């Protein structure tokens, strides 16, 4: 850290002014980042009348959870007006298996590629990794055809398949980079002790993989829960994930625009990942920086 306190040649009051300026700028930025969230919450707690009469930044005079209730139970997605809760559960049913399967596969792939290297392992890894970078537009058309042929069109299992396939590259990357720094001697010792490929994985490698499992789960959950493209392309009907439903609620202009409901629905959609972030944020950051900076 090169900071003002240690490395500034200025003394006394000039230093304090600079420091004050520093905090001011940071607080302004914090306000900029928090502002939309605050407005979102505040708007969702107002009645429509208050929204129209009041101002964007005014806090609700009367706090009402009507909009939340409406969004959850009665909002119209397409022709169905049963609220966003169905789609919440759709997202849950899609995310949990996808996260678990892609994480597991990533782990065992990473393990095999680093501790039981075979000829061409590097090429396999490179090819796998490359898949992380493609724009998904280029697989949408074939995927919808394949899903149709498999009878998985517009279904949750179909979405799970898609997310697993395209999440594999990230999870494999995470685990592979983590396992590279686990000493090979551990595997050698276990081999001499008589343990085989899978025994070593279950009893020695997995138990010490907790940090990276957490990173992988959080990263995958965030990506999958927040996804819209795949959901909109492959499951836009009754099995749509929450993000697709949200967009539907907000952008279908039947009748009066209910901004408070829109905000409530948006909050409901954003809460799970936001919660995960607040509770386990540092793992999230680790995932972001490990995945992208290392490349």
């Amino acid at each position: 850290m090169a900071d003002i306190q240690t490395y500034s040649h200025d003394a006394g009051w000039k230093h304090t002014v600079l420091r004050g300026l520093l905090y001011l700028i940071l607080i302004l930025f914090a306000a900029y980042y928090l502002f939309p969230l605050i407005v979102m919450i505040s708007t969702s707690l107002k009645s429509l009348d208050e929204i129209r009469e009041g101002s964007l930044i005014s806090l609700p005079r009367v706090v009402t959870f009507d909009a939340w209730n409406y969004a959850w139970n009665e909002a119209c997605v397409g022709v169905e007006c049963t609220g966003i809760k169905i789609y919440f559960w759709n997202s849950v049913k899609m995310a949990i298996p996808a996260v678990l399967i892609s994480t597991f596969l990533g782990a065992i792939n990473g393990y095999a590629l680093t501790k039981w290297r075979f000829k061409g392992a590097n090429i396999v890894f490179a090819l796998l990794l490359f898949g992380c970078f493609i724009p998904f537009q280029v697989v949408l058309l074939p995927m919808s055809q394949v899903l149709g042929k498999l009878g998985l069109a517009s279904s949750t299992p179909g979405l799970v398949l898609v997310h697993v396939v395209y999440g594999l590259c990230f999870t494999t990357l995470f685990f592979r980079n983590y396992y590279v720094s686990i000493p090979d001697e551990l595997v050698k010792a276990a081999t001499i002790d008589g343990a085989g490929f899978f025994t070593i994985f279950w009893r020695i490698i997995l138990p010490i993989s907790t940090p990276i499992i957490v990173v992988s789960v959080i990263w995958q959950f965030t990506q999958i829960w927040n996804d819209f493209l795949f959901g909109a392309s492959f499951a836009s009907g009754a099995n749509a994930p929450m993000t697709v439903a949200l967009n539907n609620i907000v952008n279908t202009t039947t009748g009066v625009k209910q901004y408070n409901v829109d905000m409530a629905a948006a909050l409901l959609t954003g809460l799970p990942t936001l919660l995960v972030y607040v509770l386990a944020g540092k793992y999230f950051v680790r995932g972001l920086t490990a995945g992208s900076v290392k490349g």
Partner: protein
Amino acid sequence: MASLTLDKVRKAFGPVEVLKEINLAIDDGEFLVLVGPSGCGKSTLLNLIAGLETATDGEIRIGDRVINDVHPKDRNIAMVFQSYALYPNMTVRKNITFGLEIRGVSNQERDKAVADVAKLLQIEALLDRKPSQLSGGQRQRVAMGRALVRDPDIFLFDEPLSNLDAKLRVDMRTEIKKLHQRLGSTIVYVTHDQIEAMTLASRIAVMKDGILQQFDTPQNIYERPNNMFVAGFIGSPSMNFIDATLTEDNGKLALTIPRDGNPIILPLFEAPESYRGYIGKDVVFGIRPEALTHKRTGSDEPGSQYVNFDSKVEVIEPTGADTMTVIEIAGKEIVARVRPDRQPKPGESMTFSADMSQISLFDPDTELRI
């Protein structure tokens, strides 16, 4: 416990030959040390014996059994690694019994085995701790416990003391030696430290670039090194090498070392047949620092193995027990070992005695012992 035989063993990784025809045989109960600089192939050889790599050619036998194609777990060997390789998520107890558990050994037998080994290595108090809670020396012991509990035919050690600090290293070295005396086990031990090799081994295999340079007892390797590499590798401070010419004067052989018009002439004490072919030729004269000392009593007598000569002292390095004295001969820096009470001042000239019964001569081209 069993004997170990390596018969024309070769190992190549693709085009690279890491081990070039190794022939070794040790008896039951021997302590074999594989020693050499990094990259000499000693760890690869150990891996071959363990079964972690497969030999490209040749046979490896434990006792009478050819084990080339036998899985490590069926070879009845145990290995102690440089980094100990303790399973981080298991207690010390579980670390030690993991192998037994895989083999289906019963609970009672396992408990007894752990208790015995823990007592032997004095790690009873540590049994319920995890590796992260142990010091380096304690981890080392647990790693040895894991190996001991298998009661193998052969113990393999892969540089087990490299990660310890100097004092601990000396203590653990003694422990390993005591264990060997007590158990009489067959051990193959890899190290790059020649002091460990000398102190622990019943026989040493010196390796360089995948070739076995010399396989003999420590004392023989020390006193009669096969070539210049072995001579320079074993012994600290290392052997001095001086270019000289083998001359004959009235039937007596001597070494003539050029020195600015005033050559040093060192008559030989022994003259084996092999020297005959080198009369008049250049040779490399090898003499260890402890054979080059201050003037010895009796060195002026005829027939003495000591030959005296004078030289100017460049640097002195007192070590407490001796003083290493650096002199210059024929452009090279030569180390002599001098008693502290006789130590010279730098720049002074002093008389040195060379013990000519303890020298080695080498062919300057092949670097082999003459």
